[in-house]
């Protein structure tokens, strides 16, 4: 029999058992109650308890079994495993039936079970983080065993070209040895992020200042969601826009100044990425500027300061931790952004300070390494995980600092309310 059908059959059997347990439990409880004995819980609650006691352990056994099957490669035939689960289900049902007694707290048992189910759902997010960490670190370690860690961190040449030959055991036929020096990738990432921040921080911050300090309420209610649209546009769309529309414009403008720009210049993805993250900065900054107590503004205005002086010298400095926090968050977003650079930035690792040249980024190389038709175990494929590890560490650090700063800011203005 097919595994699919087996599982279907198993689920059906379990459902039937559960239903039987439910109704038997309820019938028994109802009978006990009808006999005039006071019970701790409602018949329905006993019924639910019986159903849970039947299905829960069986599903658990099935899950653990299949996990063992996949993980440890244990040789348990699926049929036996499922049959075993059903036996456990039957046993669970028997136990539950015996528990339908007046002095048994069925409700508390259910509450406890539900609590456990909810808690295990909450654990999924922890597992996800560990999953990311685990998968990235193990593969990255494999990579660092092949190529040295220091070469990776400090090398200035990224040339994975021949690594697949090495993986295939034909290294000597390759023309040049593969090199995995990641410095040019980080330089490219940094350059594009820099361009993005140079666009996003002034525009985002100024928009936030306008919306929170100058704009009439009506403008504000319209402008805020309109700005949010910028963040809602899929990155693949931005990538297309950067490559097809913005890059040629930049080449033309550079040409008008007699400069030579590549069609894969770093400016186009940088600018478009900056536009994408404007709402991150503007909406977070808007929040923190609004959180600056009004008494602060009035204190300044009452001294005969103009609106702008109040904003520049009192409001913005007070909101600064929040604004920095927003910028860090936006920066981590820019560093990890993939589609825009994949579509609009170059593929060539290029160590240069000229944003008109083409350059590549960490995320571009991750995508390039994993979309080729390569052995998974080749150094190039694994290099994606090494790059991913660095990306993970950097973005995590930025997020952490950002969260701590915003928390400080909130605490400060809560405690100052004398």
């Amino acid at each position: 029999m097919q595994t699919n059908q087996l599982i279907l059959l198993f689920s059906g059997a379990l459902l039937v058992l559960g239903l039987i347990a439910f109704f038997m439990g309820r019938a028994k409880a109802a009978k006990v109650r009808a006999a005039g004995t006071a019970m701790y819980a409602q018949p329905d609650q006993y019924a639910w308890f019986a159903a849970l006691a039947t299905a829960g352990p069986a599903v658990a056994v099935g899950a653990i079994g299949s996990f063992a099957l996949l993980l440890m490669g244990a040789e348990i035939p699926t049929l036996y495993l499922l049959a075993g689960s059903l036996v456990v289900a039957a046993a669970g049902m028997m136990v539950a039936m015996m528990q339908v007694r007046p002095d048994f707290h069925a409700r508390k048992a259910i509450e406890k079970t539900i609590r456990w189910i909810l808690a295990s759902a909450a654990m999924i997010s922890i597992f996800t983080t560990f999953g990311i960490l685990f998968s990235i670190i193990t593969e990255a370690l494999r990579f660092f065993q092949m190529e040295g860690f220091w070469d990776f961190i400090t090398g200035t040449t990224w040339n994975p070209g021949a690594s697949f030959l090495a993986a295939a055991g034909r290294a000597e036929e390759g023309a040049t040895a593969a090199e995995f020096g990641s410095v040019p990738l980080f330089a490219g990432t940094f350059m594009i992020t820099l361009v993005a921040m140079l666009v996003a921080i002034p525009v985002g911050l100024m928009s936030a200042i306008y919306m929170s300090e100058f704009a009439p309420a009506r403008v504000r209610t319209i402008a805020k969601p309109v700005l949010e649209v910028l963040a809602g546009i899929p990155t693949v769309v931005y990538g297309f826009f950067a490559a097809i529309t913005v890059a040629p414009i930049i080449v033309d403008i550079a040409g008008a100044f007699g400069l030579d720009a590549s069609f894969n210049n770093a400016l186009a993805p940088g600018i478009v990425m900056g536009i994408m993250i404007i709402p991150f900065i503007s909406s977070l900054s808007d929040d923190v500027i609004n959180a600056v107590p009004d008494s602060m503004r009035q204190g300044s205005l009452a001294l005969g300061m103009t609106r702008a002086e109040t904003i520049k010298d009192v409001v913005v400095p007070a909101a600064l931790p929040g604004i920095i926090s927003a910028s860090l968050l936006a920066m981590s977003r820019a560093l990890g952004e993939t589609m825009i650079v994949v579509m609009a930035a170059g593929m060539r690792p290029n160590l240069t300070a000229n944003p008109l040249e083409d350059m590549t980024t960490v995320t571009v190389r991750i995508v390039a390494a994993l979309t080729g038709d390569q052995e998974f175990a080749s150094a190039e494929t694994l290099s994606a995980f090494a790059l991913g590890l660095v990306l993970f560490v950097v973005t995590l650090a930025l997020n952490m600092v950002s969260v701590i700063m915003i928390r400080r800011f909130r605490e400060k203005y809560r405690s100052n309310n004398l």
Partner: protein
Amino acid sequence: MDMKVADRGVTMSGHETGQPVTRNEQANHELSIRVRDLNLWYGETQALKNINIDVFQKDITALIGPSGCGKSTFLRCLNRMNDLIPSVKLEGLIEMDGRNVNEVKMDEVALRRRVGMVFQKPNPFPKSIFENVAYAPRMHDLVSRKADQDELVEQALRDAGLWNEVKDKLHEPGTSLSGGQQQRLCIARAIAVQPDVILMDEPTSALDPISTATIEDLMDKLKQQFTIITVTHNMQQAARVADYTAFFHLGEIVEYNDTKTMFANPHTKKAEDYITGRYG
């Protein structure tokens, strides 16, 4: 409102000048701010009705009355802080130095330069103690040299009675001070720009009794140089510090008198009831 004070034989000469009849001998009587027929609305609700009052220079004028009676609203008209609330509509005359402060040509920033304000809750800027005081004079070009600036900060802090407590930590943040110290810092900040008038909006309501006493002493000293108008909830405070007291009720000035008369022998029933604690 028509005060009809004359026919009750009380101390007010009516709404022509608002000048008290019973003179307070220690006070001087040069006019600082003249208010005539001031009405103010928050949207549809009228918050101030026919306010007429003369405020004298280098005196302390206290505004008392039950909460919601409009005394803070009135105070904030005097340096146009109500401009910040879009729904506020205002009629009538507030005259200072021969100019209507609400006229179109009047620059509210210039007005606030001359009419400073201290708020209910101390609100030092998120800057150092020194910067809190030095900031405004520097922006207003009152000091040109660094030495002048140091001198001015020291003088303002001395005047506010804070110098001895903070002289060794001028570069710590203003928020690191205690509540009472913060409030005196705010006063120092206000006097550093050399205003004519200082408005105080319940300056001690957020403070402990000892800090309150310090601030009250300070107010007494400051009236040598400044005209002070203070809103207070605390009648004893008004009795202690003020030269003149105006009693507000439901957006009107019920009685305006020199403080001694007001507390010893109020001429209106409402003021008497309030002062003797029948309501408030």
